[in-house]
């Protein structure tokens, strides 16, 4: 009987119910390996595990397992191989429906770290699953520790932004938070999603703020205890020489792996770039340079090279061209590469559109969306570069006047600067001259780094013509902030959900959000209403619109408006009534009559 076997490992606790412990263990190992690598196959293995768990009969070989759900040829083959090896090692008569005694634990590198936590878990009691403990000096470990330390500082804001957190956590971690290791696309930062999943870290707001979870905080304390013990263990092995708790300086010394330079780990805010210490460089989005179909794209790069413009091709999350002020750094003796210089983004950003692009983007809605994102990107002087492509405009799917109107709207309504050119060559000439003049414009200026995350988009006071702004955001922060669809908050999704109701525009949704910012809060409000009629009316008293004076000179006055009654009724029906749609007829009928009466 398999159940009579002594159970020694945590993971074996599930075994008595499963007559195929060996297969189960292998699958679990496979799943964990896949999970560590972040592979999607972990889910495949997980499914196989759950169906194996449900199967009450012992399996003789891997082929038999094929009858189970979620067992495909691949898994069966792997299991068969493992089984063959097992037989080779333990003899052909070895029992496969019970585990050999003293079997090595499933091969995880952090098995040592389990020892100190096991006790804590025992005290906590009924937890069935093994608690997740990040490995020492891993990304997760560093992030937790950094958040924990930050929370210990009295008067701290209680959360950290991504850049801050990376800067603080970097010296606690062996891997880089920004540069992926060779042959992998994951950085130490990748482990943050695991922490969020495990409820150890809370991610809120946009731009994201990270907080150690209340539960997580105790965990961090634990992992700090953990650090001590691990430090003791590993110091015997002479791997770590410095106690990890006050290791601001020790971080680099205790590991052989390269660390991010101290310049990057310092907080970027408030730093200065003095005149002469930086150069202005044009950044070109890589989309503008690739893509074989548009041969004129390569032409642009060639043209820029011919004009001897210093430019850099990189992935821009918004816009096609912009300029950075890059710090000039002297190479350090003994190092092959000079340390990376700091980069601040100038306020000018260009979206380039040929007439046919423009036409296409108006049709599929990208036009408005792109302009929206340009307005929000934090750079104050967006430029629309329109390449008119000669006579091509005449056989586009939109009439010429529509396109011209769209261009002029971009200037008048959206406040962009519109630059018209004939062809790629002129675009390149324009970019060249802009680069030269911007260098000239910034010749004698001291640049100060500001952070959008920390300070918001304050109106710059130096809005005079010809005097460009000198408080600029760093390129990293700019580009991270401009990622499309990066992370949705509950509030954002709720707003979008509200707008699915016909007649509920963005401003109305925003007004409702001011009162009820989550589906939960709206539903609670409905529950607290005394009568049906009150529920129907709940939202119709919300006013929106604001008094807005002379922010834009020509617009003196915008008044309050009300959420229309029928919208209030709809929201009530949609969110609150637990009805099948077919039975809704009567309800909507009565609501409509009340709408009419209003």
């Amino acid at each position, binding site marked *: 009987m398999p159940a009579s076997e002594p159970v020694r490992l945590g993971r074996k606790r599930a075994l008595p119910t499963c007559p195929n412990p060996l297969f189960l263990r292998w699958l679990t190992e496979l799943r964990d390996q896949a999970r560590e690598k972040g592979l999607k196959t972990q889910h495949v293995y997980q499914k196989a595990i759950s169906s194996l768990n449900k199967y009450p009969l012992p399996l003789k070989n891997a082929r038999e397992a094929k009858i189970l759900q979620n067992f495909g040829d691949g898994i069966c083959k792997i299991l068969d191989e493992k089984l063959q090896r097992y037989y080779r090692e333990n003899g052909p008569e070895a029992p496969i429906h019970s585990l050999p005694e003293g079997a090595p634990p499933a091969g995880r590198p952090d098995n040592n770290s389990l020892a100190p936590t096991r006790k804590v878990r025992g005290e906590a009691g009924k937890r069935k699953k093994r608690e997740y403990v990040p490995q020492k000096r891993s990304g997760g470990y560093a992030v937790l520790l950094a958040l924990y330390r930050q929370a210990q500082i009295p008067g701290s804001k209680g959360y950290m932004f991504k850049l801050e957190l990376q800067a603080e956590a970097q010296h606690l971690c062996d891997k880089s938070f920004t540069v992926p290791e060779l042959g992998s696309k994951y950085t130490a930062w990748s482990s943050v999603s695991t922490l969020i999943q495990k409820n150890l870290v809370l*991610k*809120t707001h*946009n731009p994201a703020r990270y907080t150690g979870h209340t539960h997580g905080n105790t965990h961090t304390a634990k992992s700090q205890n953990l650090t001590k013990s691990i430090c003791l263990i590993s110091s015997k092995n002479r791997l770590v020489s410095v106690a990890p708790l006050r290791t601001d300086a020790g971080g680099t010394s205790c590991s052989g792996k390269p660390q991010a330079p101290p310049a990057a780990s310092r907080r970027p805010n408030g730093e200065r770039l003095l005149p002469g210490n930086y150069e202005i460089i044009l950044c070109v989005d890589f989309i503008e340079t690739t893509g074989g179909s548009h041969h004129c794209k390569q032409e642009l790069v060639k043209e820029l090279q011919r004009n001897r413009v210093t430019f850099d091709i990189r992935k821009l999350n918004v816009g096609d061209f912009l300029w950075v002020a890059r710090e000039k750094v002297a190479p350090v003796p003994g190092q092959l590469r000079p340390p990376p210089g700091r980069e601040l983004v100038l306020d000018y950003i260009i979206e380039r559109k040929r007439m046919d692009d423009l036409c296409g983007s108006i049709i599929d*809605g990208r036009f*408005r*969306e792109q302009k*929206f994102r340009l307005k929000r990107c934090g750079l104050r002087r967006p430029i629309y570069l329109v390449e008119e492509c*000669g*006579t091509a405009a005449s056989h586009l799917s939109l009439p010429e*006047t529509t396109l*011209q*109107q769209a261009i*002029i709207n971009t*200037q*008048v309504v959206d406040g962009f*600067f*519109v*630059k018209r050119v*004939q062809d790629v060559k*002129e675009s390149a*000439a*324009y970019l060249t001259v802009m680069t030269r*003049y*911007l260098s000239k414009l910034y010749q004698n200026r001291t640049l100060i780094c500001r952070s959008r995350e920390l300070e918001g988009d304050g109106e710059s006071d130096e809005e005079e*013509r*010809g005097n460009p702004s000198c408080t600029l955001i760093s390129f990293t922060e700019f580009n991270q902030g401009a990622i499309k669809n*990066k992370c*949705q*908050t*509950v*509030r954002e*999704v*709720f*707003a979008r959900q509200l707008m*699915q*109701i*016909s*007649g509920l*525009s*963005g401003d109305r*949704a*925003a007004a409702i*959000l001011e009162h009820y910012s*989550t*589906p939960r*809060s709206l539903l609670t409000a409905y529950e607290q209403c005394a009568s049906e009629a009150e529920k129907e009316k709940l939202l119709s008293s919300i006013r929106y619109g604001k008094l807005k004076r002379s922010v834009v*000179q*020509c617009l*003196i006055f*915008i*008044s*309050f*408006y*009300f959420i229309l009654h029928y919208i209030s009724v709809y929201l009530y029906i*949609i969110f609150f*009534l637990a009805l099948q749609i077919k039975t*809704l*007829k009567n*309800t*909507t009928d009565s609501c409509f009559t009340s709408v009419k009466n209003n």
Partner: protein
Amino acid sequence: MSVLQRAKTWEISDSEDEGDAQTKGEESRQTGLSADCGSSRGSQDTCTPHAVSQSNSLSPPRELKSGTPSPARKRRTKEEVEAERVKAKERKEARERERRAKAQEKEERRQEQQRRREAAERLKSLRPENCLKRLTVCVDPALLQHSGSDILLDTLVASEWKFSIESQQLSHSITWTRDVSQQGEESKGPVEEEQIILVLGLTDFMDMVIWVKKMLESDGEESPVESVLSPLLECLNRDAKKVVTVLVTDSQPHYRANSCREYTVHQTLQSQLGIDNLELEEVLVYLQLYKNVSVVFLDGWQNVTDHVCAVTKALSKRPFKILTERTELPFCVDGSWASGVRVERDGSGLSQVWSRQIQQLNRVSPAVASTITAAYPSPQILLQAYQSMESEEDRKGLLAGLLVKSGGKERRIGPDISARVYRCLTAHNSQLVLD
């Protein structure tokens, strides 16, 4: 069980209440004020059910009280007479108050409706077609000397827009004013728009280019010599918010299609002044970076007119656009996804709204959304399903594993989407990041 028990307590309380009322009734009959008392008993009867069950423990002493023959009874009746009179008066006053309150409420409702109507009208007045009516195109008389300017005037007349021909601060310019008297409470008369169009002929533009070039060569010193540019610069110094567009046009229209408008300008510049494209570009970039002035080359007055009309239309769209864009939402509110679904009287459309609401989460396809809505036809049904589950883990995973049918392939909803839907519908923290 519980229902039965409740019924019992009700029975008890009912009978008690009746007995109580009866004794009181007898008392009042003796005093000869039955009419008033009857009504008071009535009111008592109606309001008791809740209170009585609590008064169970109090009943014995009350019975005692009513049972005692009291010498104070007679005196009390006199007092009662007085008390009833006061009460009656109070009731009357209360009724009066109620009536007044109702009237006031009615008045408030009327005012509220009035406010709503006004608000709706104001909103309507911001619509482009209404804004257009309040715009006036102001044309500087100097422009009328251009031979092609008739096209502009004819077009303005034909479009029935308001326009005026009056001397502008900047010669050769076109500006716009907006009448805001109906819009706000304070009537201030017309407000100037930020946009200014300056129409220059080729020769004037060439003067400007030469002037800027000289200035660039002398390292940024603005030369004191009067030029076409100086009134423009003056104008910009007066009001830094103005946005100037220079339209450069040749007074003789070139009937050569609109392919290369700039061509003639370039040619003229090159042949007459020896200025090449790069130098021209430098002048334009200077105007952009230092003066925020854009230059557009147009072929003839028809194009100038089109440009002016387009700006006018754009100006009329602006107020409404600003109103809708002002919202502090972190995404673009325009687009097909935001148009909303119409719900018909029979409730059709509601399921589509619900389905599209789920699709608002990142990476949720229509197929996945319709699978969820098929299993849980309304948000409330889904929420009830959540409530019926015991553990957080179960709720998070409720939707995981639902079979999605799309294009012959069968997939299942993943644990990530399931958890995101759950957190979105139930989270208290509106700033929680779902991805």
